[in-house]
């Protein structure tokens, strides 16, 4: 029987917002006593990213974030305060790092595709309160000025299998793009194995050049519901459904419904060979067309000897011509894919930090209609990086790796 109080156990599984990770990869230490506990972790990837072919581009920049939580007893339950910040508005110049087939973003009056845009400086500013309703049942409320609603899998920044990979998944806008919504309210109910949540949130996205969220026209116009089951220490299954109001600004889209399922796997830190994996499938369904725009992702990592991580990600996405800024030039929907592999080697370590040297290569797969725009049916991307990763918990490193 799990000796950790259910409130602490529920918080320990958090991935930024209220999404659950496998117990083996939780971001907060599961405390057995009632004291205040803090957890901080972060990553700074100083990277050179390049794309080849017709749309060749290159950039030196930094993908980075720091995430902190503080939890402690208040009344009968447990209070949690969360903060996640990034310096990307200054270190990842707009329109962002080159990455083929990424969704177009506005830049100097026109739409530019094939870039990984910078995050806002503030990605999570939230508080949550969980109160036990019994030894095996807890109810909670999560309120965020910026945060992750109950829609989608744990955001890629916190997924164990993606911890050594600084690139944005192609399916981000079908899976976890709402992770930094500017206004979220979530109610949740959890047992030791099952988590049920419902959120209302602001579906608007950031505007180009924004450093902080823009609340000038904010409203809780979107919603999501999610069910998660952690049947064992290493696995977490989730399913979600929701509605995202029409977006403006950085990621223009029509109003759409969103649905998906995920399985996350993570092995505990011990061991000479530690695996982590994510399998995610989902779809956007624009209300205007009712047509399914699916995406699927499989990512995996294996850490050897706590010093070398091998990682990969394979994706399929149905892109719209609008997402590629090619309306009127190509069919309205196109199937694209990507297969990437990478490796990361620890080159230095301290008590709560480590330095890694890594890289990733990706082969995209595009239909014939896109060949004139990308110069090939198999365009290439690459990124090499030096990463500083720090924290007092293992989600700041590749899974299974002590700093």
């Amino acid at each position: 029987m799990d000796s950790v109080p259910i409130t602490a156990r529920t918080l320990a599984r958090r991935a930024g917002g209220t999404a659950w990770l496998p117990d083996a990869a939780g971001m907060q230490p599961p405390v057995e006593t009632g004291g205040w506990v803090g957890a901080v972790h972060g990553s700074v990837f100083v990277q050179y990213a390049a794309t080849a072919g017709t749309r060749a581009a290159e950039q030196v920049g930094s993908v980075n974030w720091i995430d902190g939580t503080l939890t402690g007893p208040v009344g009968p339950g447990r209070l949690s305060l969360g903060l996640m910040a990034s310096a990307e508005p200054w270190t990842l110049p707009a329109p962002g790092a080159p990455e083929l087939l990424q969704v177009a973003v506005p830049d100097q009056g026109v739409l530019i595709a094939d870039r990984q845009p910078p995050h806002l400086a503030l990605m999570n500013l939230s508080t949550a309160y969980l109160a036990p309703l019994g030894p095996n049942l807890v109810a909670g409320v999560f309120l965020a000025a910026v945060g992750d609603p109950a829609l989608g899998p744990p955001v890629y920044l916190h997924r164990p299998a993606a911890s050594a990979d600084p690139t944005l998944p192609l399916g981000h806008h079908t899976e976890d793009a709402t992770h930094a919504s500017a206004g979220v309210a979530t109610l949740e109910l959890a047992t030791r194995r099952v988590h049920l949540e419902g959120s209302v949130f602001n579906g608007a996205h950031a505007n180009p050049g924004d450093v902080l969220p823009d609340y000038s026209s904010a409203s809780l116009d979107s919603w999501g519901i999610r069910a998660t089951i952690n049947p064992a220490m290493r696995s977490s299954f989730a399913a979600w459904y929701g509605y995202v109001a029409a977006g403006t600004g950085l990621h223009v889209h029509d109003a759409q419904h969103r649905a998906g399922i995920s399985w996350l796997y993570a092995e505990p830190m011990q061991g000479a060979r530690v695996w982590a994996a994510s399998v995610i499938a989902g779809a956007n369904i624009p209300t205007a067309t009712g047509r399914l725009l699916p995406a699927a992702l499989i990512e995996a990592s294996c850490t050897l000897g706590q010093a070398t991580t091998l990682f990969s990600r394979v994706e399929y996405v149905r892109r719209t011509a609008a997402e590629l800024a090619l309306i009127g030039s190509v069919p309205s929907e196109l199937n694209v894919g990507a297969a990437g592999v990478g490796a990361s080697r620890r080159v230095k370590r301290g008590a709560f930090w480590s330095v890694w040297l890594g890289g990733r290569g990706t082969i995209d797969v595009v239909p014939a209609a896109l060949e004139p725009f990308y110069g090939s049916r198999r365009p290439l991307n690459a990124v090499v990086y030096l990463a500083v990763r720090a924290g007092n918990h293992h989600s700041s490193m590749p899974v299974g790796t002590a700093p």
Partner: protein
Amino acid sequence: MVALACKATAPGPVDAPLAQVASVQLIDAATGNNVTSHLALYPPYSSQVYVHLFEAGGQQIAALTDAPVAFGVTFSPSSLATAITDSVLLSVVVTPTAASNTPGTWSIHLHSAASMTDKVFGPFNVLIH
């Protein structure tokens, strides 16, 4: 860190012949909004739209080397709206002529007599509000 950050390779404007135009983006002259995915028209008002040209690699084309080009638009249904085009500025003034809530599309036609090149882009969505 800030000092390390370099600008992504800029897709700077270039001059090119019409044959190299691979895509267009439509920009509302009054607001600067990108209306490529959806042009909203509000009777009885007209809207001016600029047509921005791009090479396959994403570089914006500042000027066509085989200009002048004949610039035309077509609407579907044809009763959706009327247009007055400016072939030099590649702008078009669109005036709705259909009833409110009428959906439709429009297409952009470009022709260079010098290079005997024809290009058609669209359909682009239109809704009369």
